[in-house]
């Protein structure tokens, strides 16, 4: 027995060693004169900020769901980022950025054989890895409070290892969409759209939570258990977005980059503010009270929407984009409830609908002067860019949904997607994790 263990140990070590040896040897071989230290610093700091969006999502999703499922959603948030980190390192980054064809990259597994650009490849990986984690984590919110933990782990791994990287390759990895001039600066479609649309497919496979819709079709409230946590989450996300968007410039050195990241920053902020104001106003007008959770979704909607166009539109356009985003999110939540699509945290309207909206907005307000291929509709560029944008965002959404539908179907058939009714009522914390989130408090587990 002990011998076996030692042998296994040695094998593990050996492989680590060999692989690492290769990697480092290769890297030592090439000189790296192109690396910009300042850009590296910028991108790393931005990556840290984007990483911090993980607790943002975790707090938002936990806060907007019920106390009896809090451990479960937190565990999912830890695991999706951890699993994404590992698989995106081993294969995902290669599929996304490695040399390959216009559909998929095929080199650079475990980052081996990749060359440094203006950034060390390690820095590029880190920045991309946190984006990948973001796409994954969006799904957990939409499918919250009823998805089996093991199933979640399985499809998250597939999403982050294969599906997201392929979609990313099309645009950011030099694939066919980039060749067509599709523009998605920081990932309204690639990151958020993917997350949101996959969440949509997932919820359709799952069905609504128990008690969400009455027999007569009326939607019921299954209110979030901690609005303060949710609010904290949204603020953290807003903060993290200052890494997400400005960081996607991938450079900060030189006057042009300095101006670019400044413009991106203010656009990001103005759109978020406008989204919050618009969503609150709309929900206030329609339902009579300024709903906090909707306001928060409005801020996120503005952030998602500005993610694609932030580098190529003016601050004024950003405000308008954000205002529409706030409107779209309220309408979207209401629409989904009518359709009995149960999305506990609003992942679909925030990331799916507004991911699409933001991507399309590039074709409306985008400016050639700021680096876009064609001027947008309102800048006299006609429908060229707009058409490409629509095509691109639809293509990505369709691909994401199709792939994951297959995965969900397979998982459902093999291990099942949904917990039992008993488990759902008692809460996933006790049943799936054997623990409670709030041991010292008396909570209602009966809703």
């Amino acid at each position, binding site marked *: 027995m002990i011998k076996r263990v030692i042998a296994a140990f040695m094998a593990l070590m050996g492989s680590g060693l060999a692989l690492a040896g290769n990697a480092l040897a290769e890297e030592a071989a090439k000189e790296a004169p192109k690396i910009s230290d300042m850009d590296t610093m910028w991108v790393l700091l931005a990556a840290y900020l984007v990483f911090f969006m993980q607790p943002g999502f975790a707090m938002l999703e936990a806060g907007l769901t019920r106390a009896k499922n809090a451990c479960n959603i937190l565990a999912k948030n830890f695991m999706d980022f951890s699993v994404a980190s590992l698989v995106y390192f081993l294969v995902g980054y290669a599929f996304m950025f490695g040399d390959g064809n216009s559909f998929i990259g095929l080199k650079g597994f475990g980052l081996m054989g990749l060359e440094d650009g203006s950034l060390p490849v390690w820095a590029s990986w880190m920045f991309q890895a946190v984006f990948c984690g973001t796409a994954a984590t969006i799904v957990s919110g939409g499918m919250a409070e009823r998805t089996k933990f093991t199933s979640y782990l399985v499809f998250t791994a597939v999403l982050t290892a294969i599906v997201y990287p392929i979609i990313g390759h099309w645009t950011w990895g030099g694939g066919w969409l980039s060749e067509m001039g599709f523009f998605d600066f920081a990932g309204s479609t690639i990151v958020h759209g993917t997350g949101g649309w996959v969440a949509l497919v997932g919820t359709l496979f799952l069905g609504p939570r128990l008690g969400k819709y009455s027999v007569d079709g009326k939607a019921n*409230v299954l209110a979030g258990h901690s609005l303060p946590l949710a609010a904290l989450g949204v603020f953290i996300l807003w903060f993290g977005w200052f890494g997400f968007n400005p960081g996607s410039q991938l450079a900060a050195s030189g006057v042009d980059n300095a101006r670019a990241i400044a413009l991106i920053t203010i656009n990001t902020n103005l759109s978020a503010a406008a989204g919050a104001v618009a969503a609150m106003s709309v929900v206030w007008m329609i339902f009579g009270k300024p709903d906090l959770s909707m306001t928060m979704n409005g801020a996120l909607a503005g952030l998602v929407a500005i993610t694609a166009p932030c580098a190529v539109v003016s601050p004024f356009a950003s405000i308008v984009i954000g205002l529409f985003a706030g409107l779209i999110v309220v309408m979207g939540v209401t629409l989904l*409830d009518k359709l009995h699509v149960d999305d506990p945290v609003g992942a679909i309207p925030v990331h799916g609908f507004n991911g699409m909206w933001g991507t399309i907005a590039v074709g409306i307000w985008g400016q050639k002067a700021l680096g876009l291929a064609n001027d947008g509709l309102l800048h006299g560029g006609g429908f060229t860019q707009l058409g490409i944008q629509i095509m691109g965002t639809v293509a990505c959404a369709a691909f994401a949904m199709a792939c994951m539908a297959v995965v969900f179907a397979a998982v459902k058939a093999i291990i099942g997607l949904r917990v039992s009714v008993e488990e759902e009522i008692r809460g996933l914390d006790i049943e799936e994790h054997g623990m409670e989130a709030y041991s010292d408090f008396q909570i209602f587990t009966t809703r």
Partner: protein
Amino acid sequence: MKLIIAYIKPERLRDVKQALYEAQIYNMSVTNVVGSGRQRGFSETYRGVVQEVNLIKKVRLEIGVNDEFVDAARQAIVKGARTGQIGDGVMFVLPVEDAMRIRTGEEGGSAMG
């Protein structure tokens, strides 16, 4: 000896306590409950969904009293809790066979006060 159980609106607790104090009834125990009665819940909106909440938050008072204090207690509760609107609540009077103060071992009526 009786145990009076009253379900009242949470926002009336202060006034009920005050009224009981004035009636020289200082001993009571309070719990949070959710309940439904004639008032069948109110509607809340949350994320654009209108909800008819069926179990409403109430406060439950338990007051152990000697027989001669029952009326005073009832009046005090009504005085503090009545708003005239639906949801004001109800109270029940239950017989108590025995009472005991744990610290002193006093039994019966003198344990109540």
